[in-house]
């Protein structure tokens, strides 16, 4: 018997359209799946059952009225808990926002609702999206669906995990340094970061504004293209939003890679990358060559400095972005004798250690006398990285690399060594610094049965090319495995 929670978005949309089942039935299947998996994963922070059933009913009503639904109509979608949802608790995984009810929907959420999607819940994350394992959530970690002793990656670990097990058919996350792609890799799903500006950031609680970008998770490349299509496009509420019409995302999924030029990033294929990951990446590169692509090795020496630059720029921006959480207007307030004392106490108690570490780092990097050596220097590195990628794209259509240096690591393994944790983002950070689109998709399981992600990167606004290559990678990999937790049977 087929379980609706195992459907891709494409199949579910076809089933809904053919009236084979209702959106309400689909939602019930997904919620049943969640009721089983959540006991093991803790991937959701909030499930909005009432709102979801109402949306599903509306979707069913519109279909019974003979309306032609769009591709997301009636599809249960989860969003990371750093996107504002009107009247539904939005915490950013932080104690400081515990109980916070936003008065408005983020643009992405509004567009999803407008497309008829059933927004069923808010997923767990590292506090304020700062982390690579979802262990930094103030409300407890999320576990990896393939091995619950391991992390799902982060910071959008909840969104990756719910898609992996089918407790949502698709999800949205945010990617500041790899926070969509790395958990997608560790959970064996497809995760994509669009070009900076393609998706509005309005309503996304900012971590590092010049790097943050919202993007989708799905089980297939086609699903991810569909999800992106529903939310992309200019938004008057985001001054950094791209003004042109969005690229055609799904137009070339079937075109193959014959004649395309693929560059393998040398710096991401050696030291610091596990041998299983290098082998899987190399195998996929060979397969692409076999499918007609021409492959060249590309050296991008500035990548060596990208991680350092990122860990100055992102904390600097976060030190200002998170200044608003002061207990004055909303969220946690810890009283004090003066307003200064109240603000200090609120922040000391409301933020977790990693958030405090980054605020301090960023404050330091922006301070008089240090600005030029730290923040200024980091911006120059950013320019250099961008220039190097631009010249690489004169030689190739896409660049490829592993997504994460390793498969999922154990819970607690890296929590005592921030530098080790930061290194998890080494392959993904360059695309955030350049603002270019990138996607991760599963290509194999390692010796321990954990998924390995493959990353495809493309120039700004070349999403169509990105999806075209990713679709071919998906066909070549034939990755169909699901984690054991992708079941609605009670697992003992």
């Amino acid at each position: 018997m087929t379980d609706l929670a195992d459907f891709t978005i494409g199949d579910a949309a076809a089933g809904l359209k053919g009236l084979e089942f209702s959106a309400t039935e689909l939602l019930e299947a997904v919620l049943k799946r969640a009721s089983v998996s959540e006991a093991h994963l803790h991937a959701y922070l909030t499930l909005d059952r009432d709102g979801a059933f109402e949306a599903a009913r509306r979707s069913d009503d519109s279909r019974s009225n003979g309306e032609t639904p769009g591709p997301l109509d009636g599809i249960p979608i989860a969003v990371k808990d750093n996107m504002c949802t009107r009247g539904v608790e939005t915490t950013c995984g932080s104690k400081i926002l515990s109980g916070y009810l936003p008065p408005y929907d983020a643009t992405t959420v509004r567009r999803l609702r407008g497309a008829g999607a059933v927004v069923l819940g808010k997923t767990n994350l590292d506090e304020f999206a700062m982390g690579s394992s979802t262990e930094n959530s103030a409300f407890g970690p999320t576990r990896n669906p393939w091995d619950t002793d391991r992390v799902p990656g982060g910071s959008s670990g909840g969104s990756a995990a719910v898609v992996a097990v089918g407790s949502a058919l698709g999800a949205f996350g945010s990617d500041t340094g790899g926070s969509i792609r790395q958990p997608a890799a560790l959970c064996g799903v497809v995760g994509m970061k669009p070009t900076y500006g393609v998706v509005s950031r309005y309503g996304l609680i900012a971590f590092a504004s010049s790097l943050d970008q919202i993007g989708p998770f799905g089980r297939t490349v086609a699903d991810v293209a569909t999800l992106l299509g529903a939310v992309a496009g200019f938004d008057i509420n985001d001054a950094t939003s791209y003004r042109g019409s969005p690229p055609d995302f799904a137009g070339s999924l079937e075109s193959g890679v014959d004649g395309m030029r693929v560059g393998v990033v040398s710096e991401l294929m050696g030291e610091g990358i596990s041998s299983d990951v290098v082998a899987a990446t190399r195998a996929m590169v060979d397969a692409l060559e076999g499918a007609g692509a021409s492959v060249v090795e590309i050296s991008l020496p500035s990548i060596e400095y990208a991680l350092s630059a990122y860990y100055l720029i992102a904390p600097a921006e976060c030190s200002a972005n998170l200044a608003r959480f002061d207990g004055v207007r909303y969220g946690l307030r810890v009283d004090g004798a003066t307003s200064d004392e109240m603000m200090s106490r609120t922040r000391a108690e409301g933020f977790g250690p990693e958030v405090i570490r980054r605020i301090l780092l960023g404050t330091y990097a922006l301070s008089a006398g240090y600005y030029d050596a730290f923040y200024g220097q980091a911006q120059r590195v950013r320019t250099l990285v961008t220039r190097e990628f631009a010249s690489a794209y004169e030689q190739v259509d896409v660049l490829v690399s592993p997504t994460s240096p390793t498969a999922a690591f154990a819970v607690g393994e890296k929590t005592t060594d921030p530098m080790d944790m930061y290194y998890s983002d080494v392959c993904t950070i360059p695309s955030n610094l350049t603002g270019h689109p990138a996607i991760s998709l599963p290509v194999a399981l390692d010796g321990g049965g954990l998924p390995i992600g493959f990353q495809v990167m493309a120039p700004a606004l070349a999403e169509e090319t990105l999806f075209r290559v990713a679709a071919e990678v998906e066909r070549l990999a034939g990755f169909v495995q699901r984690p054991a937790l992708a079941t609605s049977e009670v697992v003992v």
Partner: protein
Amino acid sequence: MNAEWEAVIGLETHVELQTQSKMFCGCAVSFGAAPNTTCCPVCLGLPGALPVPNEEAIERILRIGASFGCTLVDYSEFHRKNYFYPDLPKNYQISQFDLPLCVDGALEVVDTEGVATTVGITRVHMEEDTGKSRHLGADGRIHEAAHSLLDFNRAGVPLVEVVSEPDIRSADEARAYAVELQRVVRALGVSDARLEEGSMRFDANVSVRPVGDDELGTRSEVKNVNSLRSLHDAIAFEIDRQIAVVEAGDRVLQETRHWIEDERRTIGMRMKEESEDYRYFQEPDLVPLVVDDRWRAEVIGSLPELPAVRRNRYLSAGIDQPAADNIGDDPAFVAMFDEALEAGGDAKAMANWLTGEVVAHLRREEVELAASALTPGHLVELVDMVAGGEVSPSAAKEVLHGVMDGEGTPRAVAVARDLGQISDQSVVGAAVAEVLAREADALARMHAGDMKPLGFLVGQVMKDTGGKADPKLVSDLIREAAGEG
């Protein structure tokens, strides 16, 4: 001021723009609305909200910059100015740092003595206003406040900061600068620029140095002045205070000092252990502002006549500076006066009427010029009638009142109220003869060379004719009769 010392003053002026909406969101800009009624996620700094710049505000700051002859730069950026304060919603202010929109201008100011000086304008930049705090507690002092109330209606209102060069040398000159800046802003129609309501706010950087020294002394920053008078008095106080400090052999501290209106003095605020570090960095939520040649030309081309230009035009038309400024400060008077000038009226006479009797009448009746019946044509006709001897100057006042009350044109009013001047030599001659016959003694004294009774005799004739006889003609006829002329 002591002659051995010279004051060096620079002013930082904040002007709230009266745009339709706030700087980075769609909320209305309103003064006096109920607290926290004109705010939204953006100006409250709610999580996830993003700023979108208000083009109308950018246009207005460019107009302000252009009126100072500033360079309107090609490329400008917003920065975040970071500091924690409960009425600053994001705990950073979106402002401009090293790339302001307008740089290098000047403002010509004229002080109360009529002395003109040019004050350099360093920069004009765009920022957002903060909310307002009200500290409640024993006698309203911050330190004893039991709690604070916050109103975010003002948060995000577009604020233009105009920074002057330290070119100002006296409290008088500082006031003149403030007045002229206010004139410019009002002439541009970008703000009502009221100090009392806080839509124009001044901070003064004041230092003193021995006359002839090139180096600047240590400056204090004087805040909390909310009228032109307190701006003047606070600076004057601060100059005297600093001179006294230096003459006593002490050092002036670099500090912020508040003007205490009731006590007419400045007091130093608690010294910070270190200077404030605002950790400016480029605002990543906004894209750079690009001003191209077309936009620049449009802004410059659409500027109205600026106060200094108008003042000089009026001065060369022959009227004095106080009258030029009085007329220039009110757009309705400017329109009236310019049209009357165009129609060929005598500038000086019309200026006297406008700034004298017209203003007095309006004040008495508590009406605006626009609401009175006076037209530029009436003004020209009235001064012509006086010059041509049709009405006496004193009768003309009555004519004016009739015109302003809507009784008709000056000639019509003069006829209706029987105020026409009698210039007919035979009629006036008869009246003179009658008075001279009656007052033979006075006439005799004049015959003997004593001219003192002349005024008395003229007065008698005027009295007999109900004030309508041409006083000059009367005077001439009496002198003639007394054997002069």
